[in-house]
Structure formats: structure tokens, C-alpha cells
């Protein structure tokens, strides 16, 4: 996760979900909110799922992504965002 926090696009996505923890969105939606290219966002989302920062809700028509529920991960992200504000 530390590596992902250093990438601008990953960090933007993490910030978005940290600020909107009830959100579930598609790659297209997330790309709109973070103002990045959809293809890059799609890849970054999958990286974040692998790092267990996001949860993927996969269906045949699309995949929805939501924020982790793991309190330790959330606390770690909170600390990082505060330090780098």
C-alpha cells in the first residue's frame, strides 16, 4: 500500500473513497470524480483491490468499487492523508 500511496492517481482514488466512504462506483464514475483517464483509473482500482484498500463488487455488466471496511487500513490512510495535507 505504501507504494500505491506514492502514485498520484492511486492517491486521488484513495482520497476520494476516504472522503466518501459510503460510495460505490464504477471505473467511469471514479474517473469523473478524480478527473483522470478511465483506462488508467480502471487499472489503479484493480491495484487497490489487490492491496485490500478497495472492495470489488463484480457483476456481469460492470464492477462497482467501494472502500475497505478494515479499520486498521482506514486508520493508516487517515494518518497518511493528515501528514500530507
Amino acid at each position: 500500500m505504501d507504494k500505491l500511496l506514492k502514485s498520484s492517481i492511486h492517491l486521488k482514488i484513495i482520497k476520494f473513497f476516504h472522503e466518501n466512504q459510503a460510495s460505490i462506483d464504477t471505473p467511469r464514475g471514479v474517473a469523473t470524480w478524480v478527473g483522470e483517464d478511465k483506462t488508467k483509473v480502471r487499472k489503479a482500482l484493480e491495484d487497490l483491490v489487490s492491496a485490500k484498500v478497495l472492495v470489488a463488487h463484480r457483476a456481469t455488466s460492470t464492477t462497482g468499487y467501494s472502500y475497505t471496511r478494515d479499520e486498521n487500513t482506514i486508520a493508516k490512510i487517515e494518518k497518511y492523508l493528515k501528514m500530507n495535507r
Partner: protein
Amino acid sequence: MKEINNNVYQKELFDRLKKSIGLKKEQECIGCLLKPAAWWIVEAANPKIGDIEKTVSNICPYHKKHAIGKNKSCVRVLFKVIKKAQETKLIAKFDCVEGLHGFVYPIMQGDNLYGYIGTCYRKKDVPAEVINIFSAFTDTIVRETQKELELSKLYETIRPRAIALSTVHTVHRLISSTLDLNELLPRIARLSLQILRANRCSIKLIDSKRKTLLPKSTIDLRTKKVRLKKVRVGKYAPGKAVKFGRPIRGRDFLAVPLIDEDVIGVITIYDKIDKKPFSSFDQEIMSTMAEQAVIAIKNAQLYKEQEKLTIGSIKSLAKVLDTRAPGTYVPRASFLKIALAIGQEMRLDTESIKSLEYAAILHDAGEIVIPYEVLTKPSKLTGKEYAIVKEHPMAGVELIKHMKALKSVTPIILYHHENYDGTGYPKGLKKDQIPIGARIMAVVSAFEAMITKRPYRIIKNIDEAVDEIKRNSGTQFDPSVVVTFIAIINRKDIRQALEKELYG
């Protein structure tokens, strides 16, 4: 409340004004014309004398040198001119006790006055042209700042709603993409837990007598073991939500009824992760979620009904056909199981597996065109008779072509007598040209024909039939299907079901 909002607006406006690059540049430009000059801002429409004193102490270089009395006079001059600007809502000039000059500009929006911006400490009187330039500049800067603030407020208000709307849209897409209730209900439960950041969700549907709520999906993210409890309508939060047809909210629970034309069930969420009570906003979100969930659940229920109807029609058709040659068309459950298990093992998608199930029942339906004498002939068929037999896949397709639900079944029926090496019928297709469903059906139907009673063939036992299939791998049958078939047939559960059905 309005006053609080106004105060918040005022504070934010001044925060932005103080950071405004435009204002800094203006002060630099006008400052050149008024040199030397000191600038100040009073952040109140109706400032108290204390506010003025604070301003003066911050900017006036004479303040610390003055005697207290002189300072007070200075503050009074400024207070007086601010009052004048407040009343006239126009720029007001003044001379301070040191004989220095300055002016006060009231910051307005429409009729509302928010504060003042001013300058002093100028040795000569401020020319009217400079005041006009300052006024025009400041008006523009204040208007720009106000617009920026309003846009930012609008963004702050709209963005969370747009994000919530996008979430609702995504949830709608996720739950509409399945028609399988066993997949749909846990998905709705998980998404509800995610949206409300809660720990437990239970979905209950009402029974046919409309007296009891039957648990259909319960997810508790804190434990793997969940108790599925029936609830009587009218009892506890879920029962009450159903009885009264409205959400029931408590500190640690939120039950929202699933209402179509009538109440069909309830979604109950328990225990927020942050341990906060459920809010009216949660209730609003869950009600929207329930509205979408009920449509998806009804669609899935209708699809299931439709499916039952289709399979019922197929079975009836198979029974009618079976009257011509008893034991030939009504498939044995174990053969269906084998066909489906091969499909699953070969990772076919859900729709293809369903098609395989229908095809397993109907693959020889076209034999209805074969005359009874040919169908039951115990000896070898003549060339003419064999030509008639070879027509049955096409006849089978003709038979079901008007049933739209069976469209995906037709390639399996049409090509299940094709051989892997291209020597089969009706088209002589080979290898991958033959649809995978038809290649699976070729193995299963040949196996079935070998071990069940047929007028033209001596029954083989299971092992003999399996050997025969193996021998024809690569010629009659797809080798990959044969490998999977052998693995399936050696499974204990399949073997037992087959033996029980065949030999009792």
C-alpha cells in the same frame, strides 16, 4: 439560523478576500498612488468600538506612541466614518487626529453590508480619481470573490449529492445484472452494508400466507455463523416494518419494507461500524435502495417462474414423445447431472449450462418424425431408413423453433450427432466447428444410449460404456470432453446416483 448562516458566509467571504491575489495587486497599485498608506479590513457590518480599536492598534504606526486619550480620539474618528459609510453605503473620506487622510469602502452584496476595507496614513488628501479607480477595482474583486464563494458553496452542496446519485446508479446496475435470487439477495445485503457502513444485514421475504417473514439472506461481517430466524409479521422491527408498510428505525437497527404493489419483504440493517445511531439520511438512502431491490427481486422471481414454466413445457413434451418408445425420451436425473457437471467443469457460463440442461431433455425430440417401425427396429437399418434417422436433429429444431426461450438450445440439438473428425451428420462439422454444448451432448447421449434400453442395441454396463467412449475419443468425440466426462463419471456421488437409477 439565518443569522448564523450569514455570519458563516461573512467569515468565508473575508477569508477569501484576505487571500485574494486581486486585492493584493490592487493594494500594491493603489498603494503606489497613495504612498505611504496603510490598509485595513473590518470584518463586521456593524462593528463595535473594540473592533475598531483592534484595527487601529494593528495598523497605525502612531498607536504605540500616542497617549491613551489620543488613541481613543483616533478610534472615534474611524468609528464615525465607518458609521457614515454604513448609512450611505458609499465610500467615506476622513482625516485622523495626526492630520493624515484616508477613506472607508463598504463591502456590499445587493443590499447586504458585510464589512469595510479602508486606507489611512496618507499625508495629502486622497484625490477623487484615485477613489473612483479604487471603487471600481474593489467592486470587481468583491463581486468575483462572492461568485467564487457561491460556486464553491454550490459545489460543496451538489458534489455529495452527485456522488450519492452515482452510487445509487451503480447499485442499480449491480443488482439488475443477475436474475438468480440466490445470487441477488446476498448481493443486495452486501451493498446495503457497504452503503450504510453497518455490520449486519438480513433480507426476509413474506410467505404465501402473508403471516411470516422467511429469512432469505443474512450477512454479518463480524462472524461467519449467522442465525436465520423467521419473524412473524407485526413482531420486532422487520415484522413491524412489513405490517405498517414504512421504515422502522431504532438506534442500532433500520428495517425498510420491500414494497411492490404490496409488501413482499423487508431489509433490516443492524449496528453501524462507527457505533453511531441510524440517521434519517440512512433511512432515506435505504428506502431508495429498497425501491431498487424490490424491482430486481420481482424480476428474479418472475424469471424463476418463467424458467419453471419452460422446463415444465419441455418435460411435458418429453413425456409425450416417450409414449412412442417408452424409456427413450424422459431423461434420467443422473444423465442431466452428468451433462451439467461436465458443463460446470469445463467452465461454461450459466446460460450455456442452462441450455445444456434443456438440450439434455430435448436432444432427440426430432425422432418424432421417424416412423415407429424404424424407431423400434431391432435389426440394422437400411440406407433409406438411416437417411430418415439422420433428419431427426433438424426435425428437433423445427419442433422448438417457435419457443424463444429455447433459441440457445437449437445448436446443441442440431449438431449433437456431429463427429469430432467430421464424419457425423447433419453437416459434417469437425472439431471446434461443432458447438461445445453439442460436443458434450454427443458424449452424454451416446453414453446414455449404450447403458439404457434401446431396441437396436444390447445394453452395456457402465464400465463397458466408458471404455467405448474412450475408444472413440478424437474420432467420434472431443478428447477434452471425454477427459472431463471420465473425471465426472468417476465421482462417487455421480456413480452412486447413476447405479441407483439404473439398477435400483
